[in-house]
């Protein structure tokens, strides 16, 4: 059974004149690394809020259609019940850390659900280790860099041991190297812990290589869903303003000029470089 499934999901914020997501039907399998992209205002963030019930419980408004996450109907269950299953990491690290020490922040969710102190300590330490911030656990949030803050945010949802982690543009405020480190942490959690990851990102240059399931949204609708290699090589994807990775673009441009590097559309510089080395090396 799919871990997330939506059917004709349509949602309008209170007071808004038109819906933010329209007829969204998607299916995510357990253990997948899903990438959602699309131009600003396409409804990506709103969709993320549906996964843990922030929409409609926190935002009110009207949600139509069906949604099931970890087998739970989020329409009927409040966000605090979903927190054990779905962890949400937001764009701005600053506004999701509220305690005065990092480990206290990581413990916040566990404290809220009333986990015993001994068990909490274990889970907190595990989450700190998984995200590589164990050594700075006693510092306060403003003593650490933005990249570290975002790791704290990840650790703090990880401590709840959710089946799914949803990250809404988690690296837009970070420098490229810190961003890459964050993506590696997420990728490892996906591969080693089997956590289903849903990552919302503009910057496919940095992220396309991690995914096997891409969802492209535009104007509230799902425009493409499926194999990233196929979607990113289609002309329409480019037309709706998705930033295709440069390596993929170069591959397509070469193809147009008659240099076919193979059937596999590359998603990263490594893949393209390998193809080029093979095609251009003297025999």
């Amino acid at each position, binding site marked *: 059974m799919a871990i997330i499934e939506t059917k004709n999901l349509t949602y309008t914020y209170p007071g808004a004149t038109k819906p933010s997501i329209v007829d969204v039907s998607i299916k995510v399998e357990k253990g997948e690394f899903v990438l959602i992209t699309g131009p600003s205002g396409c409804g990506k963030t709103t969709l993320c*809020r549906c996964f*843990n019930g*922030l929409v409609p*419980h*926190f935002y009110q408004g009207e949600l139509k259609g069906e949604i099931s996450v970890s087998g739970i109907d989020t329409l009927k269950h409040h*966000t*605090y*019940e979903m*927190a*054990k299953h779905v*962890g*949400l990491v*937001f764009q*701005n690290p*600053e*506004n*999701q*850390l*509220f*305690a*005065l*020490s990092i*480990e*206290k922040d990581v*413990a*916040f*969710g*566990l*404290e*809220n*659900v*009333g*986990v*015993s*102190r001994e068990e*909490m*300590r274990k889970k*907190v330490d595990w989450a700190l280790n998984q995200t590589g911030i164990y050594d700075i656990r*006693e*510092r*306060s*949030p*403003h003593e650490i860099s933005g990249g570290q803050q975002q790791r704290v945010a990840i650790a*703090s*949802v990880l401590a*709840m041991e959710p089946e799914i982690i949803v990250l809404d543009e988690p690296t837009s405020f970070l420098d490229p190297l810190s961003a890459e480190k964050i993506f590696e942490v997420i990728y490892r959690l996906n591969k080693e812990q089997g956590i289903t990851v849903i990552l919302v990102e503009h910057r496919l240059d940095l992220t396309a290589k991690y995914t096997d399931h891409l969802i492209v949204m535009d104007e509230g609708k799902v425009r493409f869903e499926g194999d990233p290699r196929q979607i990113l090589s289609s002309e329409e994807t480019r037309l709706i303003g998705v930033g295709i990775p440069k390596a993929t673009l170069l591959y397509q441009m070469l193809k147009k000029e008659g240099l076919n590097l193979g059937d596999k559309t590359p998603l990263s510089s490594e893949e393209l470089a390998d193809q080029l080395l093979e095609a251009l090396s003297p025999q």
Partner: protein
Amino acid sequence: MSVFDGLRFRKVYSPIHNLDPRIKFVYVIAIFVVAILFYQIIPLLVLFFMQIPFVLLARVQRQWLRSLRGAAFLATFIFVVNVATTYFTSGYLLTAANVENAAAMTLRFVVLVESFSVFFLTTSPDHLGLALEESRVPYEFAFAFTTAVRFVPVLAEEAQTIMDAQKARGLELEKGGLLKRIRNYVPVLIPLIVSAIRRSLELAEAMESRAWGATKKRTNLYLLKLHKGDYALLAITVGILAVAVYVHFFVSIPTIASLL
């Protein structure tokens, strides 16, 4: 990083910092009560000097001196008013006893300031928040306190950025008369308020997502435990109170003027 950096709390470790904030608070209240109990200068001087070992142990002497300096103006005021009133009410007589009395009143005020400043200088906000949580104060209140401490420096920094952004658009905050100057701050205040509202919404969203309000029986990662030092401080506090009460009722305290 800005002029507002002073608002940020720092973690310092010292025997005094490690004490349980609740016991420290009891101690401060005891000093407070004792200070009110006496109007003679000698016991107040004793109280004043008794705080100094704490200050030194906590290594906050510099900040402590600064807070005393801050109180200097009010202290002078109290002294002058006391001297003046006795001078006028006692038929234009300025006696040594009157001056001493005024000095004692001033010292009482200084002792109060001193002990509270030791408390706040040696208690980190997270410790204080924890103490609030464990003192049956509703959790929402403790949370509001620590979150405020967390975000005051952030907002201060933001205010600085907004001021810079508006100055870069030719806003001159110091230009014009008083009314105009107040109006000059509108372009700073509106973005600050809008952004604070936006921030609080994002915070609420993050809190909801992390199971805020899931159960009434909230647990806590930390537990405040009383250590040897805390018991020692408690003993000292009880000792001070006992001695003070005894002295107050059974010992007649001489004035310095009478000793000379």
